[in-house]
């Protein structure tokens, strides 16, 4: 599904990604871990198409096509979803209007008719239930006045609405209490299928108790320095990152 080869990216000339290689197949859950400043969020941004970052080297193929050629909206319509670490508040744009526009733009991209208002509202209701999103929040402006937990829940709600093939969840667990974490993780697990894949970017092993990864990668200085199974996360929890950093230095 996704194949990243030797990806380098910088911002204002400062190199943040320093040769990333990653293969993600349908049905898989990958966790990307690493200390602050290791490039985790940059990777998510580059995959989402944020123009702030310049890709200087490497390739990203998505279903065989060059992902980096596509605009952010085309990537989304092709099934890539980014769960933002800091979801943006957009006063004046209602959640309903936002989601309706997004769903119908994506349908248009696929050559489908727009959903009728009735069908759309039905879809909203189903998905709200899935992530236990407060009905009142959906009537408000996008993320405006939402608590940290509500914002993250809203990300998963959007993911449920848009049914992506590849979800990249950037620090979805940050700022969540244990109940919110459980709800968010449940949402992700319910949406999981053999057709789609998830990349979970996280600091802590905690989220991985709820969303069990097939692979764990450690990102450090813009490079994946170690990959393993879910047990790697536990090892990191126990030992921290230092032993790996030292390894990196030795290399």
């Amino acid at each position, binding site marked *: 599904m996704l194949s990243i080869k030797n990806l380098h990216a910088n911002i204002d000339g400062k190199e943040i990604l320093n040769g990333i290689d990653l293969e993600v197949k349908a049905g898989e859950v990958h966790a990307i871990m690493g200390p602050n400043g290791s490039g985790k969020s940059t990777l998510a941004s580059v995959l989402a198409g944020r123009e702030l970052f310049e890709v200087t080297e490497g390739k990203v193929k998505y279903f065989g096509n060059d992902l980096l050629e596509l605009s952010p909206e085309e990537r989304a319509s092709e099934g890539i979803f980014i769960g933002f670490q800091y979801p*943006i508040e*957009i006063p004046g744009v209602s959640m309903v*209007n936002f989601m309706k526009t997004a769903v119908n733009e994506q349908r248009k991209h696929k050559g489908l008719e727009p959903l009728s208002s009735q069908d759309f509202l039905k879809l909203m209701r189903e998905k709200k239930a899935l992530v236990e999103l407060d009905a009142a929040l959906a009537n408000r402006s*996008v993320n405006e006045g939402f608590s940290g937990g509500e914002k993250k829940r809203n990300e998963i709600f959007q993911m449920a609405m848009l049914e992506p093939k590849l979800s990249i969840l950037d620090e979805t667990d940050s700022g969540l209490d244990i109940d919110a974490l459980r709800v968010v993780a449940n949402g992700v697990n319910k949406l999981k299928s053999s057709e789609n894949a998830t990349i979970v970017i996280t600091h802590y092993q905690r989220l991985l108790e709820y969303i069990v990864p097939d692979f764990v990668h450690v990102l450090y200085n813009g490079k994946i320095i170690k990959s393993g199974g879910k047990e790697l996360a536990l090892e990191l929890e126990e030992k921290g990152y230092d032993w790996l950093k030292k390894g990196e230095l030795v290399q």
Partner: protein
Amino acid sequence: MSLDTVKIDTKEKFIELYEENQDLLKSDSPEYVNKIREKAFGNFQKLGFPNKKNEQYKYTDLNKEFENGYKTYISPKNIRFQVNDIFRCDVPELNTKVILLLNGWYYDRENLIHELPGGALIGSFQKAAELYPELVKRHFAKYADTEKDGMVALNTAFVKDGVFLYVPKGVVIEKPIQIINILMDEEEGLTQHRNLYILEENSQASVVVCDHTLSTPNFLTNSVSEFYIGQNAHFDFSRMQNEHNGSKQVSHLYFQQERNSYVNANTISLHGGLIRNNVNVLLNGEGCENNTYGLYLTDKGQHIDNYVHMDHAYPNCTSNQLFKGVLDDFATGAFNGKVLVRKDAQKTQAFQANNNILLTDDADINTKPQLEIYADDVKCSHGATVGQLDEDALFYLRARGINKKEAKLLLMYAFANDVIKAIQVPALKERIQDLVDKRLRGELSRCNSCQMHCC
């Protein structure tokens, strides 16, 4: 009848125009109106047109606009058109009676005054001045200041017709009254309508005004409207400016609010070559509330200039000003808002905000919110912002599959909606939301053959 003018010094030109036509101007106006006319003419001779040295008109050179050899309408010109072909009013909540002004003259010359339930009157200002001298005398030229602003003096010197609304004590007009200002002629014309709105105590009314051009020549408008809002009266005023890019308009609104009265005034500027809106409010009693809002959407070489003067003369009044604008291409604009809190106006609450989005590097806005406070127990704020669309918000929308153009529209629409949502007639609000959406998409007719059935 109409008159052609020769291009000489602009002020001299209008002085000459007045002197040549004063018999005609005065012929069908009552004596008390002509007295005010003469005084105003004297003031105009002194004041002339405001130039750029005048702080109030710093960003809009009106003198230049009046240089063109516009034809002036000293008496109504007989232009017939099918009203129903142009305006099919399909907002069910509005009053079915549509009031039309054509080039500043009350259009329905057969029925110049209409009586509404409860003894309210709507119709031609000129006719009202003749039929109801006591009433008109009490209010006409009492609020619009001909001594300070040459433009107001000019309008008053040439005063003929416009809209007259009278709502007697205790009368409530349920359905909003729609007034359409139409500019239509084969030649360039200058229109100076004069409007008078009188709401006596405990009355209530709602008025929707639309400004339109229906033919291609360039038009210039210099209009004055006076509003007397009696004690406990409630007045809602919405205005839509949608003229073609060859049109220039200067409008002056003067509100005098008595104790515990309420005014909501909302101006939506959709199109126009040059628009200068002056709003002057005098809160002349305790417990008044005034909300003055404006939204302007400009592009190409359009120019918009909003000026507000909010005078808190008595304690315990509240005023809110919110002006928002989106400027595209090389459009230019200005906002100059002043809140004056007089010494005795304790417990005043006055808020003022002007927010602008510039879509290009060439678009330009000058904004100057001002507070002048002489009381010590007040709550006032003012602020202005000029910025671009929020890049993070734009990216967030795009990351959900919404294309860049649509995402920008969503953000601009959201920005504009703060003003639109203050419109109090629900059906009108929806219609304006739709018009603004179309305007932002560039789909709104900007030509003379306006078929938008705006209300």
